[in-house]
Each structure stands twice: as C-alpha cells, then as structure tokens.
C-alpha cells in the first residue's frame, strides 16, 4: 500500500504507544494527527491508520464518523464554526451567522469557491459566559460581535498565500 502519512505522524504515534494499554486507544490521537497533516481525512488515510492500528478499515470509518471534528470531506483553509447553542443564541448568535453567510457569500455548511473559508454551526463550545463565541481554526474568539467577525474574515483573506 502506498504510504500517505508522514514520518512525523509515525514518530508521534510511536511516542504515544506506551501511554495506552491497547493500540486501539490510539485511534483518536491518530485521527487528530492525520487531520493536522491533511486538513481532512481522505479514505486512503483512514485505511492507512487502520493498517497501523491493526483493525478493519470499516472500524476506523465508524469511529471517525462519530465525531464531528473529524472532517471526512475537504474543508476550507479557515474553518469558522459559530456556536448557536443556548447561551450564544441568547446573545445574538443567529445574527452573527447571518452576517457570516452574507459576508462570505455561502450558506452555513458550505465552503467558499476559492477554498479559503468553510462556515459551520457549532454546538456549545464551552465559552458560555463570554458568549457569543466561535471557533476559528484552533482558536476561540469570544464576546464575538459583527466587528470581530468581520475583522477575522478580512485578516484571513489577506494571509491567503
């Protein structure tokens, strides 16, 4: 089988192996690590993880598809996830979502044609006392308002290259 995952991936996994009593426990860390490299999780990558862990390819697929953070389809370079759960909703998350849709010209759940932005609705992020909040790639932006959202999008447009 052709290798897709880097040495970095295998080194990271080797380091983690002794920290768990079973190899299967490495499935979540492996999926995180692979997604960090690929931005999403193509089938071939999942199959390679299955081979590394020593389970059936279907088993990796079943685990990966359970968790919302694993992207089983490609996503934009910047992934904006706006929390619309109760606390954020009470603090105007719906308006922020509408703004983001208009600003990016896409609907929630879509990716801009240039592949720069994906927009999704997020369930509670655990930033309720600083609501509304969004997750932008790995970071939280809290006490979010239209200006902050606008600034983030503008900033990311510039770092396009």
């Amino acid at each position, binding site marked *: 089988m052709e290798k897709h995952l880097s040495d970095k991936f295998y080194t990271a996994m080797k380091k983690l192996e002794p*920290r*768990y*009593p*079973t190899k*299967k*426990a*490495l*499935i*979540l*860390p492996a*999926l*995180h690590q692979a997604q960090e490299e690929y931005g999403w999780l193509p089938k071939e990558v999942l199959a390679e993880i299955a081979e590394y*862990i020593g389970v059936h390819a279907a088993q990796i697929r*079943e*685990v990966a598809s*359970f*968790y*919302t*953070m*694993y992207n089983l389809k490609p996503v934009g370079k910047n992934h904006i996830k706006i929390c*619309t*759960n*109760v*606390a954020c*909703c*009470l*603090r105007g998350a719906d308006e922020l979502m509408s703004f983001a849709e208009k600003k990016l010209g896409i609907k929630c759940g879509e990716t801009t044609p240039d592949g720069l932005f994906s927009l999704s609705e*997020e*369930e*509670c*992020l*655990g*930033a*309720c*006392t*600083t*609501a509304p909040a969004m*997750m932008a790639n*790995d*970071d*939280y932006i809290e006490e979010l308002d239209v200006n902050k959202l606008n600034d983030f999008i503008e900033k990311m447009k510039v770092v396009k290259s």
Partner: protein
Amino acid sequence: MSQTTLFEQHFWKESNRTLEYYLQSMNGYQAAQKVLKEMSPDQVIDEVKKGNIRGRGGAGFPMGMKWSFIPKASEKPKYLVCNADESEPGTCKDRQIIRYTPHLLIEGLIIGSFAIGCKHAYVYIRGEYVREAKLLNAAIDEAYAKGYLGKNIFGSGFDLEITVHRGAGAYICGEETGLLNSLEGKRGEPRVKPPFPAVSGAFGCPTAVNNVESIANVPHLIRMGGDAFAQLGKVDKSGGTRLISLSGHVKKPGVYEIQAGSMTLRQIIDHLGGGVINDKKLKAVIPGGSSSPILSADEIDVVYDVEPLMKVGTMMGSAAIMVIHEDTDLVKLLMRITKFYEHESCGQCTPCREGCHWMESILHKIIHHEAKPSDLDLLVDVAQNIGGKTLCALGDAAAGPVISFVKKFRPEFEAYIKGQKIYA
C-alpha cells in the same frame, strides 16, 4: 455575605498558570506531598468523604464514595480518568481551571490516583479545547520536570503517569461510559450499566471517572482537612465551594464561585450577575445546564444547590445558569435545545435516536404554524416516552426541557399553533 473562594481569585491572569505561581501563592503540591508521605489511601478516601464533595460534573454523586467503590484487591490496573469534556451547554468552569490553575488539577490527580491505586491517569478533554489541552500538557511537562509526576514521586515510591486524551466533538463523551469508550478508541456510545466503571471501566479495569472541578478541589480539601472543607458548604451533604457558569441575559456573565448552598438563584442573578441586561424583566432561568428543567421567574427563590433544586423538580447539574429575559421566544429556544440533543444523540438506543428527532420535527411544525392543537400533547407524550427509558441520561436531558417548557409556558406554544405571533 462574604464568600470564601478557592479558585476564583486565581482566574483571568495568564501568569497564574505557571508552576512557579502555584508553588509560591497556592501552597502548590504540599497536599500531594503530605498525602504521599503521611497518609494511607484509606485515610485519603475518608478525608474526601468527610469533605462532602459532590461530583461537579452533573450527577452530584459523592466523590469519596465513588473512590471507595474501587476494589482494593484487584489484579488489574486501576485508572483515574478526569472528565474534562465539559459539554453541557452553559458550562465553562472546567475550562477556567485548566487555563488558570492547571496544577491544581494535576495535584488533585496525584492525590486521587494514590487514593485508588492508579498508576496512569487520563484527562479526557473535549476536542474543541485545543488551546486548553496544550496548556495542560505544558503544565504536566512542568510537573514531570520537577519530579511531581513519573517515578517515585516525593521519594514516596509512588509512580504516576498522566496522559491528556483529546475528544473530537461529541457531547455524549461527557457521559462517563461514553467517555471511556472514546478513550479506548471506540465510538463514544454509553455502555450498559452494570457493570459500573468502578468494576469494569477503562480498558476493562476498575476506574473512577471524576470531573475537573471535583479533582481540582481535592488539594484544597486535603490542605484544609475534610471537616473544614465540608463546612464551607451551607447545606447538608454538600461541601466546599461551587463554580457557577452564569450566562445569558445578565449584565455580568461569568464564572463565579460561591460556598455551596450559600445563595439562592435570585441572589446569584442579582448580586453576582448584576441583574438582567437592559433592566428587562426576568422570564425564566435554566438552572443547571441546558438539560435541567426550566424554572419560571417566580421559582427562583431556591437555594442553589443539589438537593434544594431537586426538590423543586429541576437539577443543579453542572451549575450552569442561563438567564432568560422577557423578550425571549421560548418556543424557539426549546427548538434550539432539542436540536442540540438530536444532534448529539449517539443513536444506539431507540427512544433517544428516534424520539429526539421526532420532538424536533414536531417543534419545527409548531414554529412554522403547521402543527395541530393535539401536537402539543403529542410532543409531551413523546418526551415522556423518552424520559427514563433510555440507556443513558441523554434521553432524560432531552425530555426534561420539553416537558418543563410546555408545562410552564404552554400559552406560548399554543399561540404558535393558532398562528399568532408574540415575538418579532
């Protein structure tokens, strides 16, 4: 009333999260040292029992009792697993602990591991807390470097490893057996109980699963002594302080700390939260995370703790209070809550998988004025067919809001069905 706090004063300053600060300003690692050098595991568990810590994750189970369930004579390894999945909507207190006092958690893990005989503790942290996981790992590295973790800690002969395991976006992994499956590399589907984790938990071994705040309280408890810790609580069977996540329509949302049972819900909203924003009238309060049955404005003179809230038909859960003012469309809010549970249902058991979706569909019809008058009773009946019938507590979490919203705010639902518009 002036409050004794154990956490709050250390929050919001990034420099507080260092080991140096912890050692200098918080008597860092002295409790662990005392435990490892001077106490037996049973003595630690007894002290924790005396301290009356109730689980801070949601169920409110007495922590000392949980630890005492771990069999002493077991050939299998034992595990302490810290639940840092913090996923009940409204809750964001554990995040504060990890961000600002991570060493408190690590020290708590050392003491807890010693008490139950665990050699490798895991912290299961929700996937979205990318930054928090990094901070925690950095703190763990600091502790390893100082010899507070690893082999022969404080020369006591006790060894402990800690591994941070990241989740990947699933509310249900906050349920302890769902969490354990996720830790094992499986789908985060809750397990049938019995066997309980104390008998067969992580990797089939005896396991205690405790919330971040519960574990982070342990060093305080040991330092103060169980009795003094218990006395911080102002109601029976509930010791220490409580971190409250106060959000929604209050002037000053935030994570606050009060002595357990020392304030009513109204006092918390008025004194800590500064009252309702724009001086609007209070309409309702969700007192313990989005799964707790809603309270109407006239029900909030209740002492904010596990048992008083249970008596008024709701629950303290993870101590996440969401305040709702008069201009809020509760039908839409319920729809949002129901949608959440529908989205997070793992799908393994019938009532939750099918029922949450059905409730969402009925609410959708109500909101779009497509519902029949009988649909409201149908909605409640469906909720009752879910509540108490599911494999884990998610079913109850989804059913509770529906039943309480309709019971307490029925006219708003009826208005929708009649095609009337209350809110713009």
